[in-house]
């Protein structure tokens, strides 16, 4: 955090100054470790074993927050009799279909009910809930970004508030994690038992009524074939300890781009519509009502999904969207399985995808297996790149690595390339959504230079020109484009669209055009329009709330008059849980919101993430639906049962409880189960340039004996498009390097400041060598393990250049999010520079032959 979010880290230091203990768990010693009380180096790719070990410690030593667990989690809920855990099936859950490599989750349900996830894999239950209607896709995979929860089906789940029923979630959890002992943590993660116990003590001592512990993470948790389950393990732990919805608690995603949170909320993602409404999958005879019935939850705020969706369709298609035509629901294109960026590459190679827009993104450096990205682009008809400078994704046809090796010739490449210069943040109005869901408006300072334009300008005018060209069309495929509400006011000589008008559309308005103040006002009859329901309120009263800038010093510590946070300007999610079931703070020290009985409303330092006048003693009538179906003691209002989930009956494709599997490419066998890898991880169709490696005890795994991981540096930004061209930053971090321990340097003859060649089954790269104690050797499975650290910012273009670490990576993905496993893989390292020209390709081929790699390697269930 001190490296990649340095200014945010000042608050960690403030906490430390007030007595907080800071623990840093990372394979590397960084600026964060230097300022932490404890640094815990561990093997990259072993965090579920580590966190599972803490869960086991909490359960074995009765260190959980019992009142919180009983009242606010699904710990007391009893599971169906036919559920089988990994304990029973040696590393898999009941419902695994080996042929489709997927789980049927029906046996994971609560006894007597059926659950529908409202984020995550919502399509799982489609057939059951709509009474038939076949899906064309058996790969309708889920999405676990975001805001949602799940619905409890018909019937009340059976509960045991003594937490002793052998099939209650709490007891299942206890059995599941019993094998995650300190001894096991030591052998798998390379963390000595004393150090591990110290972490357990620090975390549990600092949790409970009077104290809270926070977990902050970044893509070191996300980018794995079990990435979602990494974060789920933290959810289990924090829910057991009562650390969610309370000040100083939480699981905080430190996101790495100015508006990456915003681009998830208002997604440019294939499977989501704004506000985490799922994109519809293709089904027979699917209309708006069938879709809502199948995908909306019945209880909680997702029970109002129809209002959110109809209001979105009104924002998209305006007057053309009417009750008679199902509000143009049919205009939405349908998914058939995954269409993620990695499948898009495969579609480019197949020739189905012919045109590609890159807007502020550099996949030729920044995506896993960068070569596959370039091969895909070389097979396009046309490519549009919008960026500040000539990034690698714009120039690969001229000077990319494949030109150098002779695998491609510029003259043979048919791709037509347009480079359009982009405007900077100082040259346009708009909002960024930061990592804590805070929308902040940045004002335009000057006009963009030359032909540089904002992406708002580009998208608006592209749509305008396309609509002009199609204006006379009578083809029904063109109706959605021609009916689109696309009249934005423009200003100035450049005809820049008014960003505030777009923000107002996102916020939404009523039938008279008055701005809405809250998503509670959204209606499903077409009388409201709203571009993103969770952002409703950002333009309340016609005022740009995101542009509010009351100085922090003139506010309380919550500072909720600076910018605007979704939802409803609440700064801490689920903060009803900061008070006990009666509505009183668990302790005065940790008070945040509370029930004011005199005024009959929730009051506090923050805005309550709860219906303002819903009393703690409110109990819903039996036939209630939507938000009304949640009681006054259900803080997790997006969940169908209002509870935090220790166990996930629906919404995840790879199991209801986090389980340790080895990374796709790993030098070690799985010590905990007979199953090496996540059995339902997503592998791409075989391709000669995306081979996987043998792992663990498989022959050939010794060819790649070292664990490697990628990371960022303070002085650079992701794939370098915004940092490698800046001389100030280039001077601070002038060259690509790898970090190795003195032991590894001795073992492989690597010299400090000399060169190293790093090889995987995909590629060979070179880097300057930094011999340092910052990446210490660990004892894993009883032997010494060396890890190789690789900052991934570099590529061949720009002011500071170097090979791209992402060349080494394979495409194997988390089955929930389709995110690649970049944070733990296996390599070989040797001294000296890499071969040039065709010899580089030959070296990789020789490694593959030596390891016995073919198209089946690493694809086992």
């Amino acid at each position, binding site marked *: 955090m001190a490296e990649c*979010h340095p*200014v945010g880290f000042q608050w960690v230091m403030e906490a430390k100054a007030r007595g907080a203990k800071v623990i840093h768990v990372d394979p590397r010693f960084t600026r964060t470790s230097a300022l932490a009380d404890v640094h815990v180096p561990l093997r990259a790719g072993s965090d579920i074993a580590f966190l599972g070990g803490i869960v086991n410690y909490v359960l074995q030593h009765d260190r959980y927050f019992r009142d919180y667990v009983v009242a606010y989690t699904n710990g007391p809920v009893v599971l169906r009799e036919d559920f089988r855990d990994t304990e029973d099936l040696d590393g898999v859950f009941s419902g695994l279909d080996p042929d489709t490599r997927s789980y049927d989750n029906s046996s994971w349900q609560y006894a007597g009910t059926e659950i529908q996830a409202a984020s995550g894999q919502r399509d799982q239950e489609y057939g059951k809930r709509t009474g038939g209607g076949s899906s064309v896709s058996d790969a309708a995979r889920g999405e676990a970004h975001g805001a949602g929860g799940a619905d409890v089906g018909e019937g009340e789940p059976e509960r045991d508030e003594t937490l002793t029923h052998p099939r209650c979630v709490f007891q299942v959890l206890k059995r599941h994690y019993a094998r995650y002992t300190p001894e096991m943590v030591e052998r798998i993660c390379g963390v000595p038992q004393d150090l591990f116990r110290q972490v357990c003590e620090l975390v549990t001592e600092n949790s409970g009524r009077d104290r809270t512990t926070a977990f902050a993470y970044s893509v070191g948790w996300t980018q794995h074939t079990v990435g979602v389950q990494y974060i789920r393990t933290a959810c289990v732990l924090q829910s057991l300890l009562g650390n969610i919805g309370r000040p100083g608690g939480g699981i905080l995603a430190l996101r790495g781009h100015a508006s990456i949170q915003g681009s998830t909320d208002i997604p440019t993602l294939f499977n989501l519509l704004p506000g985490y409404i799922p994109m519809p999958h293709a089904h027979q005879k699917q209309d708006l009502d069938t879709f809502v019935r199948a995908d909306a939850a019945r209880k909680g705020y997702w029970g109002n999904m129809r209002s959110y969706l109809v209001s979105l369709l009104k924002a998209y298609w305006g007057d053309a969207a009417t009750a008679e035509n199902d509000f143009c629901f049919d205009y939405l*294109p349908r998914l058939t399985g995954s269409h993620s960026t990695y499948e898009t590459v495969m579609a480019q190679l197949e020739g189905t995808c012919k045109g590609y827009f890159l807007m502020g993104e550099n996949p030729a450096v920044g995506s896993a297996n960068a070569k596959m990205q370039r091969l895909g682009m070389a097979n396009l008809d046309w490519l549009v790149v919008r960026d500040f400078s000539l990034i690698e994704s714009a120039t690969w046809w001229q000077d990319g690595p494949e030109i150098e090796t002779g695998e491609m010739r510029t003259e043979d490449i048919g791709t037509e390339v347009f480079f359009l210069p982009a405007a900077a943040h100082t040259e346009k109005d708009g909002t960024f959504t930061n990592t804590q869901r805070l929308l902040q408006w940045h004002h335009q*300072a000057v006009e963009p230079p030359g032909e540089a334009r904002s992406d708002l300008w580009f998208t608006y005018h592209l749509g305008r020109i396309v609509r002009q060209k199609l204006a006379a069309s009578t083809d029904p495929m063109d109706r959605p484009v021609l009916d689109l509400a696309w009249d934005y006011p423009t200003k100035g000589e450049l005809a820049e669209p008014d960003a505030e008008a777009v923000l107002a559309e996102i916020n939404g308005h009523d039938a008279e055009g008055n701005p809405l103040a809250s998503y509670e006002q959204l209606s499903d009859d077409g009388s409201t329009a709203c571009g993103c329901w969770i952002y409703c309120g950002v333009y309340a009263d016609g005022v740009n709330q995101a542009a509010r800038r009351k100085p922090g010093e003139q506010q309380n510590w919550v500072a909720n008059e600076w910018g605007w946070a979704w939802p409803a300007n609440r700064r801490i999610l689920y903060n009803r849980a900061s008070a006990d079931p009666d509505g009183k703070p668990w302790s005065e020290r940790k008070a945040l919101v509370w029930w004011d009985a005199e005024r009959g409303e929730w009051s506090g330092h923050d805005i309550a993430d709860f219906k303002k006048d819903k009393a703690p003693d409110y109990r819903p009538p039996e036939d209630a639906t939507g938000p009304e179906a949640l009681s006054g003691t259900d803080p997790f209002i997006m969940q169908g049962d209002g509870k935090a989930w220790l166990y996930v009956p629906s919404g995840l494709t790879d199991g209801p409880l986090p389980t340790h599997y080895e990374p796709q490419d790993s030098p070690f066998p799985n010590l905990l189960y007979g199953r090496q890898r996540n059995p339902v991880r997503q592998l791409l169709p075989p391709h000669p340039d995306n081979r996987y490696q043998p792992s663990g005890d498989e022959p050939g795994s010794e060819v790649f004996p070292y664990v490697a991981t990628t990371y960022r540096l303070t002085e650079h930004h992701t794939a370098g498009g915004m940092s490698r061209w800046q001389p100030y930053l280039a001077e601070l971090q002038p060259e690509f390097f790898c970090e190795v321990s003195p032991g590894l340097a001795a073992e492989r003859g690597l010299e400090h400041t000399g060169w190293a060649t790093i090889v995987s089954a995909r590629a060979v790269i070179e880097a300057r060598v930094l011999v340092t104690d910052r990446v210490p050797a660990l004892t894993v499975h009883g032997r010494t393990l060396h890890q190789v650290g690789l900052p991934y910012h570099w590529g061949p273009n720009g002011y500071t250049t170097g090979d791209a670490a992402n060349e080494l990576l394979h495409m194997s993905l988390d089955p929930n999010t389709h995110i690649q496993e970049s944070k733990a893989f296996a390599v070989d390292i040797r001294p000296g520079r890499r071969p040039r020209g065709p010899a580089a390709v030959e070296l990789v081929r020789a490694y593959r032959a030596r390891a016995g790699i073919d198209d089946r390697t690493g694809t086992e269930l």
Partner: protein
Amino acid sequence: MGVRTWIDSWPVYRQLKGTDPLGRGAAAKSGPSARLTPRVASADRVVKSICPYCAVGCGQNVYVQDERVTQIEGDPDSPVSRGRLCPKGSASLQLTTGSAREHHVLYRRPHGTAWERLDLDTAMDMIADRVIEARRAGWQWEVDETRTRRTLGIASLGGATLDNEENYLIKKLFTALGAVQIENQARV
């Protein structure tokens, strides 16, 4: 110059008489350096902004003079950042005004070996034609006899440093065009 001023201009005198006995501050300051002013002092206006790099969302003050950005500094009012910027945020003046930025549209024709110049309006028109054509070529009313009403002909990737308003228009337009392969850094 009066005697008093003359004596005051003598550093040793200031060192002995003033508040800087070690001669490391005010006593050692020369006339020219005392008259120096920061470039922000002469700015025509200060525009409130947000750092474009990571997701902490530090406040920035953008100083503008003669319609050019002359300096970018941390905004002390921000309860998020309290005026601080990291090395990247501090380099955002170079990011936005540096010579590495391209100011013109560039075009590489199929099988071409070099960039060519193209004016923006022509480029927009050509891109619109290609969108229409690729969309049609990849159009699928149905897949396995189930309605899909979509195209696999065009795809998009980016931008987690784009504004919400920009991402909103991208998703809206491409969805109306029937494109589903609309992706973002948030996936990566």
